[in-house]
């Protein structure tokens, strides 16, 4: 089956995949999200299709009134093909839950894909801002600006005791989740990731896989985020995430140093075998691609590989995802066809002398 055109993205990569920003050798991106619900409507779980339609209309009018609508793309997800909804998931613009849910629901995104607003997810509104690198303050500041523009036009439901009321009590209070996506290949190789998990849990933080809740780490990417949302101010929560990060960074860098000095031949071997596989494979599944890219990224950071840029890696990383491949091909593909296409894509991007 052929797919309709779906190209709403001004750039190949969203801002968060640029590979720039503070600590970008380890920190891929920083994401801040706020959960909000509107007065006068039941939460999404109990809202009727009509109420959900009304809500989407209210949001679109609020965006117009706030003069935000010109700089964003708004999509009703019922009108979007399932594969293209997955493209949005792969670009971190919507959650997998919103992609696979049913009924009236929408996403609004813009500003180089840094801003996204999910409508009728578990909460009426999920506002998020993603920046590349470790940059919580700026992401939060930018998001609060949008939140403030909306709150004067959309009556949020709050209480003095519980703060912003949310469908799930785990988001209650501030409704804030600060997630930092980190690449920890050295800690993974040295089998120290579990220690980081335990330390983070002690500090009341959670570590999850690449695509957030419900996923396990793959490609050595992990997300560190705050767990508690109630009883602390947004600033306190941000500070607590900012406090744990330097420890993780220091630990990963120390392990990279050990690998570089004590186990250089071993790591170099792994890195160049990964590169050789990526340059030669005729079939590549997504897990395999991710794990080889992870090693290659480590090789670039350790200075073993010079001819490939971080930008090229990030492009492969996103374009090699299943739904991005299918969008590019313009049709649905079987897993086998995708593995073949993925291998072609990777080979063409990593041609010797191209970069």
């Amino acid at each position, binding site marked *: 089956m052929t797919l309709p055109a779906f190209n709403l993205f001004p750039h190949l990569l969203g801002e968060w995949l640029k590979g720039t920003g503070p600590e970008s050798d380890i920190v891929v991106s920083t994401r801040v999200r706020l959960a909000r*619900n509107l*007065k006068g*409507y*039941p*939460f999404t*779980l*109990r809202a009727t299709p009509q109420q959900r339609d009304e809500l989407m209309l209210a949001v679109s009018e609020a965006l117009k009134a706030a003069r935000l609508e010109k700089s964003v793309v708004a999509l009703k997800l019922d009108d979007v093909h399932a594969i293209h909804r997955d493209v949005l998931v792969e670009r971190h613009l919507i959650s997998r839950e919103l992609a696979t849910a049913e009924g009236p629901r929408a996403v609004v995104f813009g500003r180089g894909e840094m801003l996204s607003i999910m409508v009728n997810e*578990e909460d009426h509104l999920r506002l998020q801002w993603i920046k590349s690198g470790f940059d919580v303050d700026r992401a939060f500041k930018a998001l*609060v600006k949008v939140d*403030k523009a909306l*709150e*004067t036009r959309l*009556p*949020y*439901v*709050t*209480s*003095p*005791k*519980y*703060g*912003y*009321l949310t*469908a*799930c*009590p*785990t988001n*209650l*209070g*501030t409704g804030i989740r600060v997630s930092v996506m980190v690449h920890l290949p050295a800690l*993974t190789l040295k089998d120290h990731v579990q220690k980081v*998990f*335990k330390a983070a*849990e002690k500090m*009341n933080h*959670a570590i*999850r896989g690449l695509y957030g*809740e*419900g*996923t*396990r*780490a*793959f*490609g*050595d990417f992990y997300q560190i*985020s705050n*767990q*508690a*949302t*109630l*009883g*602390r*101010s*947004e*600033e*306190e929560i941000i500070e607590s995430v900012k406090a744990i990060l330097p420890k993780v960074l220091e630990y990963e860098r120390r392990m990279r140093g050990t690998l570089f000095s004590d186990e250089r031949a071993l790591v170099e071997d792994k890195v160049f075998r990964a590169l050789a596989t990526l340059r030669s494979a005729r079939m590549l599944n997504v*897990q395999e691609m*991710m*794990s080889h890219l*992870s090693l290659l990224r480590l090789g670039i950071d350790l200075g073993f590989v010079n001819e490939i840029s971080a930008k090229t890696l990030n492009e492969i990383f996103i374009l090699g995802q299943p739904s991005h491949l299918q969008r590019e091909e313009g049709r649905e593909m079987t897993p086998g066809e995708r593995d073949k296409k993925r291998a072609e894509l990777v080979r063409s991007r990593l041609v010797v002398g191209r970069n």
Partner: protein
Amino acid sequence: MICDCCHKNEAKIQVCDVEQNAVAHQFAVCNDCMTLLKRLVFDPATPLIPTADALKQVQAMLSSKDKNLALPDAPGALTVAAAKPEAQAPACPTCGMTLSEFKQRGRFGCANDYEVFAAHIDPLLERIHDVTPPQHKGRLPQGQADTSATDKARELAALRDQLESAILAEDYERAATLRDRIAAISGEPVLKSARPKKGGK
């Protein structure tokens, strides 16, 4: 394909463990078992465990569920403590949510549920957010930031209720926290007799 967990329903979701960047174990589960599994495996409050172990726990839950519809009180799981059948709050008049449905889904149906089930969720909130008593701190929409006198009175009344039950339960640590909280809001000490009298030299 039949669910690897309940062995009854059709499996819809593939779950895999990734070790050393490769798929180590793979399972197929149905939507119902996935809901339970998610709480065990992906609840940020619980440590990561192998999926096989989690499936066993889900099976245990299912067999206990047949008897009394209650999930075992796993640490961090979204269960409501001390909810005996006779003490169950009535359904929410606005959205029809009941305590047992909330326990099952982990989600509320409307904002009113927070009032209807207030007595049941405060202990849960204390556990999730590690804060006693549950009290919001931080931003509120402009115009709502200043809690009005009536809100304050309502909050104080709620806190005094909680204090009373804490004392009845002989949970003095919690009572002390609540007392300080009430004092901070009302601007006056709650237990006058507990304070040494001044000027009585």
